[in-house]
């Protein structure tokens, strides 16, 4: 049932919000973007996602769908006849895509997020090592999933590309502020090339925030009081 207005409650800087936005773009589904103000939560958000009170929330004919990867699957299933398939067609490949998406959220992103929090040289070295290990795992996952094609999903970007690619803006900001290359062409050549292709995809470009704008926003929200 594709009829009904589509709205997305979110914020421009959130990588999780980017996921359904990319999926909606892939399916050419028009939607109203309801921007949340940073630091406060709207009545609509609290009513639509009482369990977690988090963005993104997709409202399809006023019915809420929550959790970014679940929203992406919902979009793929609902608008199945528009645009390319976001999830692979074979059940085994789908299981692999879901497995890696869960790994990205539970392990890879956690490693990325702990990098700027590291205090001192020892902690920074350890955080960097952990992220590099996670990157190496994803480099292999890319080779296994893509099977020689340009994206995790094959010829077109899909669920797993979106699950990882949404973090590239924040990855670049972390590289800038930390002064460390986090996605290294020498160590993860396939992933590095994939990252460029992903960012240039027409479904991604309009919703990927500019690094400079994101860096400025990061400074604001992570502003540490002086010791």
């Amino acid at each position: 049932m594709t009829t009904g207005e589509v709205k997305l409650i979110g914020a421009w800087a959130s990588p999780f919000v980017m996921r359904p936005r990319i999926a909606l773009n892939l399916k050419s589904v028009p939607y109203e973007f309801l921007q949340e103000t940073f630091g406060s939560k709207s009545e609509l958000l609290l009513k639509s996602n009482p369990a977690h009170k988090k963005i993104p929330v997709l409202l399809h004919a006023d019915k809420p769908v929550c959790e970014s990867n679940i929203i992406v699957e919902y979009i793929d299933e609902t608008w199945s006849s528009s645009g390319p398939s976001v999830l692979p067609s074979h059940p085994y490949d789908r299981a692999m895509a879901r497995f890696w998406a869960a790994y990205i959220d539970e392990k890879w992103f956690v490693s990325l997020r702990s990098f700027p929090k590291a205090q001192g040289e020892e902690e920074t070295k350890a955080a960097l090592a952990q992220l590099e290990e996670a990157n190496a795992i994803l480099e292999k996952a890319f080779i296994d999933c893509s099977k020689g094609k340009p994206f995790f999903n094959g010829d077109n970007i899909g669920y797993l590309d979106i699950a990882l690619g949404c973090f590239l803006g924040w990855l670049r900001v972390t590289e800038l502020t930390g002064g460390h290359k986090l996605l290294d062409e020498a160590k993860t050549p396939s992933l590095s090339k994939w990252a460029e292709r992903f960012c240039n995809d027409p479904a991604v470009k309009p919703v990927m925030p500019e690094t400079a704008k994101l860096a400025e926003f990061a400074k604001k929200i992570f502003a540490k009081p002086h010791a």
Partner: protein
Amino acid sequence: MAEEVILLDFWASMFGMRTRIALAEKRIKYDYREEDLWNKSSLLLEMNPVHKKIPVLIHNGKPVCESLIQIEYIDEIWPDKNSLLPSDPYKRAHAKFWADFIDKKVNVTARKIWAKIGEEEEASKELIEILKTLENELGDKTYFGDETFGYVDIALIGFSSWFEVYDKYGNVNIESECPNLIAWAKRCLERESVAKALPKSEKITTFISELRKKLGFE
């Protein structure tokens, strides 16, 4: 083509119970292999190198890891018997949301009740809140999926075999706090797939008591 299905599992794992139930609902014959979590097999380490955890479903030599992912895979590979997920996209998203809620909230909180000293009281209060949220979602439906036993029921039911453990170490009474949830659990246990997959609560309570002694908590 002859199907080969192997499940690497641990008898007390509420996650392993999910996959056992899903396979039983689909009447799939499989080779159950008990893992010693303190001495993991080379097969487990080879099939799940990233997490080294059970359950691992091995279908014709290819591993599928993570219990909820396994349920979806089982439902997609053997679609003809007993659908585990709804076919309507909105209902599917709803089911996945609640299974994800269970994964994010129940185990993390529940573990603090028996595996961490000093956090039992807060964790048990939090667990009751979480279970009440789930009880609210269940409402007066027979199962989480309404009339049909499915994905969310499978995601949660294994934890019911651990309720005695949470009651004991958390000093709570889940039955009195969430009577509808307990009634739901009893209904689920009437299904053969669930009755066969869940160990008796006393067995788990004894296991945890011995584990706590080993870990020096008692």
